[in-house]
C-alpha cells in the first residue's frame, strides 16, 4: 500500500521490554543504522541492576532511548515520540516518558493475564482495552504470534523463536524511519555464524517486521529525517566507556609508555576494563585484581616502574582506594583514577546515574590530599578528558581523577574522531643514569611545575626510597620536622594549583558572555543544559551556559567569567556539590538546582527552573 511520507526534524524513540527481550541490542542496532545515515543522535540505555530481574515485572524493565535528527542533538530527549513496549510492565514503567499524543507500539502478547499479574495490573484493567490510552496513538501487534508463525518451519524451539521477537520490532521501525537494514544483516551474519538456523531465523523475522509495515494498513505513515548539518569530516559512533578506554590507549601511544590498568569489576565501570583488555597488542596491560585496593596498588607499582598507570572504578570502589590515592599523592607518582559515577551512597543505585562523587574526589581522603580532577561532558568527550587526565598526570607527576558517569558511560553519540597526529603531545622524561662521581640523586628535587623526577628502578645511580611517611623536600628522606611538613603540604597544593597554567581557559558554551543567569554545569549534564539554554535564548532570555571540564584546579578565568552574570545557577544531579566548592572558592551566592533520582535532567525541567529564577 502507499504510505504517507512525512519529513521530521527529530524523533525520540524508546524501546522498552523485559530485560530478556533484547531491547538494548535493538536500540544499539537502530542507533548504528541511524548514525550511518548521517543523523546526529544521542542515546540513553536505562536498565535494571539485576542481570535477570524477575520476568514480566516492573523491576525487570529494560529501556533504550534514542533521539536523532537532522539538527544537532545534545540529549537523548526529555520525552519520547514513539514508545515500543514488549509487555504491560514496560508500558507501565515508561508511559510517563511518552509525549501526549505520542505513538505506542505494543506487543499484545505481553498484555495477557499472566503479564498483567506480574506487572500488578488489576484484572480487567488491561490498558490496551480500558480506554486509558485514549490520548495516545496506540498500535497493537501480536509480535509473538507473528514471529512464531514466520518461524514455524525453522526447526527451532519456542524459546529460541521467541528470542527473535526484537528483530520484528527493529524491522518495523527500520521501515517506518527509512533506515537501511544492511548493517544489522551483517551483524546477524557475524553473531550467529556458528548457528545457521538461528541466523536465518533472525534475518527472517527482521524482514517480516519490515514487510509488516509495508503491507498492513496499520502504519500509514513513514518518516524521513535528513542527515544533520554537522561539521564536515569523518564520523563514527562511540559510547562513553569505549571513548574513555580509547583516550587512555591514545595517551599510552602518544607518551610512548605502556599502559597498566589495575581494577576490579564494578558497574558501570567494567566496560572500560572490557574494552582495554581487547588491545593487548597496543601494550595495554589489564589486571583484574582481587579487590579494589589491589587494583590501585598494583597500578602504583606499575607507576613506580615507569608505566602509564590507571585504576578504574565507581564510587564504592573509589572509597576503598582512598588510602592508596593518598599514598600516590605522597609518592608524587603519576596515576589516573577513573571514576564512572553512579548513584550512592553505599551500593546505592548501581545502574543509575548521579554526579555523586565530586566532593569525594576533592576531599575524600585523610590529611591534606589535593588531586587534579577533570570530568567528561558527553560520551565522545570521555576520549578527550581521559587523554587529558593522562597528560596532566604524566607531565606533572601527580594523581588525576577522571570523572564520568553512568549516563554518558553507556550513552552514545556520533564522534568526529581525531587523527592521532592532532592530539597534543605528552612529554615524559625519566631521570637519567648517574655515575658514582655525580652528586647524590635527589628524588624530591622539583622543576618549575613543582614536579619531581620520575626515577624508575633499573636506572643506575638512582637508587632511592619513597613511601607514605612525610618526606623531606628535595632529599625525600623521612622527616618529622614541623616546618617541613607544613612546607610539603603547601607544595603539594601548589603543585595542583599550578596545573591551571597548563589547561585551557573556561569558555561560554552557549549564549553571550554576560547576562542575567549563567548556567554553570559539569560532567554528563552538558547536553541537557545546552538544550535548555538554547531554548531559553530562543524565548528571549539573557541566559548563558558554561560547562566545566577541569574542576581542580578550575580554569584561571572562571571567577571573572562568572562575575559578568547577575546570577549563577549550578544544576547538578546530586544534593549540591559543585555549588559548595564554587561558593567556597569565589564567595559568590551561587544557586543550587538539584535532581537526585538516578535519572538525567530533562531540558524542559531546567528551562522551567531557570525561568523561575529570572
Amino acid at each position: 500500500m502507499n504510505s504517507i511520507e512525512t519529513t521530521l526534524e527529530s524523533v525520540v524513540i524508546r524501546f522498552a521490554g523485559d530485560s530478556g527481550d533484547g531491547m538494548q541490542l535493538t536500540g544499539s542496532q537502530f542507533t548504528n543504522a541511524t548514525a550511518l545515515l548521517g543523523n546526529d543522535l544521542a542515546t540513553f540505555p536505562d536498565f535494571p541492576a539485576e542481570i535477570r530481574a524477575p520476568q514480566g515485572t516492573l523491576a525487570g524493565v529494560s529501556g533504550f532511548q534514542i533521539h536523532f535528527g537532522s539538527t544537532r542533538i545534545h540529549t537523548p530527549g526529555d520525552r519520547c515520540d514513539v514508545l515500543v513496549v514488549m509487555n504491560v510492565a514496560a508500558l507501565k514503567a515508561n508511559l510517563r516518558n511518552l509525549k501526549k499524543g505520542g505513538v505506542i507500539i505494543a506487543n499484545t502478547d505481553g498484555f495477557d493475564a499472566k503479564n498483567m499479574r506480574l506487572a500488578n495490573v488489576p484484572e480487567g484493567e488491561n490498558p490496551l482495552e480500558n480506554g486509558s490510552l485514549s490520548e495516545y496513538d496506540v498500535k497493537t501487534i501480536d509480535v509473538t504470534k507473528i514471529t512464531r508463525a514466520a518461524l514455524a518451519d525453522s526447526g527451532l524451539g519456542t524459546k529460541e523463536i521467541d528470542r527473535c521477537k526484537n528483530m520484528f520490532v527493529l524491522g518495523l521501525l527500520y521501515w517506518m524511519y527509512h533506515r537501511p537494514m544492511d548493517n544489522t544483516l551483517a551483524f546477524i551474519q557475524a553473531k550467529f555464524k556458528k548457528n545457521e538456523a538461528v541466523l536465518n531465523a533472525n534475518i527472517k523475522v527482521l524482514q517480516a517486521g519490515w514487510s509488516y509495515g509495508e503491507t498492513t494498513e496499520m502504519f500509514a505513515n513513514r518518516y524521513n529525517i535528513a542527515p544533520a548539518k554537522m561539521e564536515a569530516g569523518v564520523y563514527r559512533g562511540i559510547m562513553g566507556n569505549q571513548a574513555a578506554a580509547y583516550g587512555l590507549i591514545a595517551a599510552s601511544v602518544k607518551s610512548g609508555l605502556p599502559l597498566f590498568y589495575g581494577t576490579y569489576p564494578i558497574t558501570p565501570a567494567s566496560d572500560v576494563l572490557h574494552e582495554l583488555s581487547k588491545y593487548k597488542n597496543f601494550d595495554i596491560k589489564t589486571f583484574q585484581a582481587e579487590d579494589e585496593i589491589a587494583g590501585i596498588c598494583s597500578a602504583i607499582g606499575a607507576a613506580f616502574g615507569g608505566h602509564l598507570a590507571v585504576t578504574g572504578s565507581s564510587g564504592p570502589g573509589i572509597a576503598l582506594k582512598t588510602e592508596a590515592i593518598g599514598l600516590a599523592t605522597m609518592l608524587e607518582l603519576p596515576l589516573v583514577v577513573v571514576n564512572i559515577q553512579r548513584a550512592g551512597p553505599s551500593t546505592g543505585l548501581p545502574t543509575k546515574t548521579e554526579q555523586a562523587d565530586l566532593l569525594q574526589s576533592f576531599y575524600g581522603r585523610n590529611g591534606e590530599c589535593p588531586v587534579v580532577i577533570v570530568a567528561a561532558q558527553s560520551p565522545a568527550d570521555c576520549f578527550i578528558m581521559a587523554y587529558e587526565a593522562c597528560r596532566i598526570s604524566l607531565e606533572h607527576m601527580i594523581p588525576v581523577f577522571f570523572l564520568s558517569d553512568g549516563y554518558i558511560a553507556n550513552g552514545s553519540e556520533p564522534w568526529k574522531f581525531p587523527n592521532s597526529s592532532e592530539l597534543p603531545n605528552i612529554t615524559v622524561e625519566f631521570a637519567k643514569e648517574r655515575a658514582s662521581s655525580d652528586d647524590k640523586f635527589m628524588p624530591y628535587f622539583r622543576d618549575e611545575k613543582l614536579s619531581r623526577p620520575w626515577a624508575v628502578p633499573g636506572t643506575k645511580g638512582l637508587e632511592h626510597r619513597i613511601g607514605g611517611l612525610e618526606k623531606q623536600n628535595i632529599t625525600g628522606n623521612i622527616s618529622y620536622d614541623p616546618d617541613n611538613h607544613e612546607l610539603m603540604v603547601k607544595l603539594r597544593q601548589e603543585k595542583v594549583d599550578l596545573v591551571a597554567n597548563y589547561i585551557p581557559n573556561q569558555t561560554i558554551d552557549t549564549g553571550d558572555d554576560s547576562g542575567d543567569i549563567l548556567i554553570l554545569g559539569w560532567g554528563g549534564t552538558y547536553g541537557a543544559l545546552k538544550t535548555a539554554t538554547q531554548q531559553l535564548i530562543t524565548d528571549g532570555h539573557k541566559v548563558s551556559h558554561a560547562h566545566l571540564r577541569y574542576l581542580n584546579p578550575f580554569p584561571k578565568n572562571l571567577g571573572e567569567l562568572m562575575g559578568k552574570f547577575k546570577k549563577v545557577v549550578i544544576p547538578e544531579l546530586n544534593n549540591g556539590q559543585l555549588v559548595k566548592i564554587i561558593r567556597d572558592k569565589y564567595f559568590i551566592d551561587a544557586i543550587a538546582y538539584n535532581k537526585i533520582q538516578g535519572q538525567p535532567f530533562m531540558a524542559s525541567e531546567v528551562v522551567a527552573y531557570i525561568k523561575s529564577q529570572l
Partner: protein
Amino acid sequence: MTAIEKLTSKDFASDQEVRWCPGCGDYSILKQVQTVLPDLGRPKEEFVFISGIGCSSRFPYYMDTFGMHSIHGRATAIATGLKATRPDLSVWVITGDGDSMSIGGNHFIHMLRRNPDLNVLLFNNQIYGLTKGQYSPTSEQGKVTKSTPMGSVDYPFNPIALCLGADATFVARTMDRDPKHQQAIIKRGYEHKGTSMIEIYQNCNVFNDGAFEIFTEKGSKKQETLFMENGKPLLFGEQNEKGIMLDGFKPVIVNISDVSSNDLWIHDETDLVKATILSRFYDDASIEGHFPRPFGVFYVNENKATFDDLFNAQIEEAKTNYGKGDLDKLLAGRETWVVN
C-alpha cells in the same frame, strides 16, 4: 655488556640511621640480606624492596636500593603490579605477620595463587610492635596484651599451612638467630622462579621477648627444631638421635637406633602432601610428645609458570596475532561515515 662490579654488603646499606629497638631481630635480617645480595651477581639498581607498615616495613629505608615503604598490607599488591610491568627487576616484599596476614591477608593469598616472581620475607614476631604490643594473627591463643587483658580468644594462623593452602610455590622457614641458615634460605628463595615465601621467626624483644626462645636458644634448640634438608632424613635431638617416620599419613617420632635407616622419612621438597604434614608440626611446645618445629624449605614447585611470564606472554601473543596496534585504525573503528 659491562662486567658487573663486585659489590659488598656496605654497598647495600643506605645512609639512613637504623631505628629499630636495640636487640630487635630485624637487625639480623637486614644484615643477612645485605650479605646475600652482593653474591647474587646482579647490579644494585635492579633490586627493589617494597614494604607495608609495621616495624619490619622500615626495612627498605635501610637498603641502598630502590624501595617503597607503602601502606598497611598492600606491599604484595604493589609488588605484583611492579613485577608484572617490570619483570626485569628483582622485587622483594618485606612484610610482617600483621601486615601480611591481618590487614593484607587478601592480597597475600592472591599473590601466592598467582605466583609472581617475588621474594617475600615475612618477619613473624607474633605481635604488633609498631602499635606497641597488641596480639597479632599469629599470637598464640590466650595471649595477654594491652588489647586483650584477659587473653586473646582468637586462634592463630599457621603461616606455612596458609601458604601451602594458597598454592605457594616456595615455602620456607628460618629464624633471626641463625644467620647462616637465614642466608642460605634467602639465597634459595631468590633462586626460585615464582613467589618465594620465607617466614622468619623474629624476636620482638620489647613486646614479645622470647617468643621463639625454645627454637633459638642453645639449651632447647636441638630438641625443639627440625632442620629439613632435601634428600636427607628428618633428624633432630642433641646428637640427631631422633627421627621422623611416616606410618601411613601419620608422622611418628622414633629413636633412630630403633629403626632401619630406610624407614626414616627422607625430606622431599617437591612433595606437597608431605610438606603439608610438616607444616602441621606446629604444636604448643608444652604438650608432651609434640613434634619439633621444622626449619628450612618445606616445599618447592618449579613447574608452575609465573604470573609475570603468563601476563606478558599474552601481550606478545597479541602483538604476533594482530601486529602492533595502530592508533588511527582503532579510533576510526569499523564503520565510519562522511559529512560534507
